[in-house]
């Protein structure tokens, strides 16, 4: 997350600038396979030097969208513009876009250096230039000692780096990465994510990455598009996706969240309140510009505070009471499962009609000193701005 917090990155938000010209523009794109609609009328702008992530469950159309940009699929409807030019008629080998394939697609009969040089040779560059560029790429992905090896003599992580070097070698305007880190273990994955961000910044390219790992998207991307069945649910920077999800789907897809279904009541003279059959009493919420009606209230577990005594009334806070159903000790945090009912739950089978809210509390003190135990009556409270009212 270092990148999004750094001073340079904070200023980088061309999507908020109405005058900025997008590098890539998907204009009302639809893609049908037979009578199955894989992509359904989507529009998207991606800006130069942006690191953009497509996030969504399997089969939602991420690869299809990317393959249309690379030229391997033609849109059924709509246009794709690159630098303001319609690229529909340009075949894949003439698009200034390179792709790193999900399967790496390394050429098995060529060694690492030849694999990386392949794209450069297609442009008939002088031999010395090609050699220099291959050297540079090898050092960028730290594979110099392996230049003469064949792909089948490399480990999975090394192959993945060859694939990356090969797709970077031509310095494309746009690099497409289709689940580039899918085959790596967690540790290598995290390392490589930072390497990717580093490389992207160093070479000043635009990266479009496909992933179904939300943590990965949060880590690397400037903006994320959350996809669902061929459409975009929300397109926003990671912090916005996390803190202000636009729909129940996005809220549930990214991170852990408590979702309560209920109704919103607004009036001119009072703060808006959220009432739910799950809650003993209505709670105050922030709902600027929303009308009364059925909504969901979403609160992240780490935004909750837990206490044995009822907090003092505060117009800025919302609170509910319940009993501790379960405590999961995770080391750095404990997750309290609180049943929103005053009756003692010990010995009772789990009753699904009573909602359970999860609160993640940082373990700032040693375990033995913490006062809250199973079956204790507790109060959960949260800043009302932490609760997000979702209409979709």
């Amino acid at each position, binding site marked *: 997350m270092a990148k999004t917090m750094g001073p340079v990155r904070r200023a980088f938000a061309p999507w908020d600038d109405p005058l900025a010209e997008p590098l890539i523009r998907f204009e009302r794109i639809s893609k049908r396979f037979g009578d199955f609609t894989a992509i359904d009328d989507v529009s998207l702008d991606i800006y130069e030097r942006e690191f953009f992530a497509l996030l969504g469950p399997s089969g939602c159309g991420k690869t299809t969208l990317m393959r249309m940009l*690379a030229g*391997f699929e033609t849109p059924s409807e709509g246009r794709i513009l690159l630098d303001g030019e319609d690229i529909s008629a340009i*075949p*894949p*080998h*003439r698009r200034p*876009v*390179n*792709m790193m*394939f999900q*399967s790496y*697609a390394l*050429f*098995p*009969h060529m060694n690492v250096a030849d694999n990386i040089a*392949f*794209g450069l040779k*297609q*442009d008939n560059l002088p031999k010395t230039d090609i050699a220099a560029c291959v050297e540079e790429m090898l050092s960028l992905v730290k594979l110099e000692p392996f230049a003469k090896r064949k*792909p*089948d003599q490399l480990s999975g992580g090394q192959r993945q780096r060859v694939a990356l070097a*090969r*797709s970077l070698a*031509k310095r494309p305007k746009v690099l497409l990465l289709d689940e580039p880190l899918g085959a790596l273990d967690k540790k290598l994955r995290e390392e490589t994510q930072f390497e990717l961000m580093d490389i992207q910044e160093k070479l000043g390219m635009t990266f479009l990455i496909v992933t179904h790992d939300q943590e990965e998207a949060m880590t690397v991307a400037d903006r994320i598009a959350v996809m669902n069945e061929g459409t975009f649910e929300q397109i926003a920077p990671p912090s916005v996706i996390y803190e202000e999800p636009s729909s129940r789907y996005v809220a549930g897809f990214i991170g852990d969240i408590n979702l309560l279904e209920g109704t919103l009541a607004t009036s001119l003279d009072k703060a808006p309140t959220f009432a739910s059959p799950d809650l003993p009493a209505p709670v105050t919420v922030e709902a600027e510009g929303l009308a009364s009606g059925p909504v969901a209230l979403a609160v992240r577990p780490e935004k909750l505070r837990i206490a044995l005594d009822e907090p003092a009334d505060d117009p800025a806070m919302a609170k509910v009471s319940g009993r501790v159903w379960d405590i999961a000790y995770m080391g750095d945090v404990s997750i309290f499962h609180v049943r929103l009912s005053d009756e003692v739950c010990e010995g009772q089978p789990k009753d699904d009609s009573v909602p359970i809210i999860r609160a993640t509390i940082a373990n700032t003190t040693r375990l033995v000193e913490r006062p809250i135990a199973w079956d204790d009556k507790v109060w959960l409270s949260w800043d009302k701005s932490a609760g997000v009212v979702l209409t979709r």
Partner: protein
Amino acid sequence: MNQRMSWFNVTSLTFGFAFLYLPILILIIYSFNDSRLVTVWGGFSTRWYGELFQNEGIMDAAWVTARVAFVSATIATILGTMAAIVLVRLGRFRGRTLFNGMIYAPLVMPEVITGLSLLLLFVAMGFARGFWTVVIAHITFSMCYVAVVVQSRLITFDESLEEAAQDLGCPPGRSFFAITLPVILPAVLAGWMLAFTLSLDDLVIASFATGPGATTLPIKIYSQIRLGVTPEINAVCTILIALVALGIITASLASKHRMMRARRTVG
């Protein structure tokens, strides 16, 4: 497998192999027989090999056979590879299953029928029978073998390799020669080898399709045998066996090498 072989296994193995290879072994031994009589051992000599090379009829036939095998194997490999690509790549076009089945049919078709139908075709079209009709006949049946061998390799070929090549700026036609062909080359060569050996030892189809001046070695041998087996024939056959064995061993080594590589890539 540290269990000792039972006497039953040993005998059946011995008999089986004896049944298969004894005739060939005898033929090879007698090709080095000094005596003119095929059944009487008159000491070791290579004299029949020497005479063989003096025998113009046999040498001509050998030359025809080699040319037919080379040309037909090469053309069959090109056509068979193309057929395999179409069948694997073109997806589900109308009649694909039919085509797929039809490519296997000549493998099980009795050779007499293939030969006869080709003969009828040549006669109907007014082709003068000779070298080229034998070549055409051999192409027809051996290209199916090539197609089957190459097809089985192409099925496991990752098409994203070719897409990757195009993505890196290589036009579609060139990407086939730069990427796909080198990767499937062992299978193509194995197919060529197979077509070559099939053509070398074919008697039935060649005898239907042949004409004046295009007597292949198997036809020559067969016609000579009717006049009695001579040690020269033994010598020719020994050389043929050596060639065919070499071809088959090379082809199987190539595919084994390929499989080992593939296994290493997966592993």
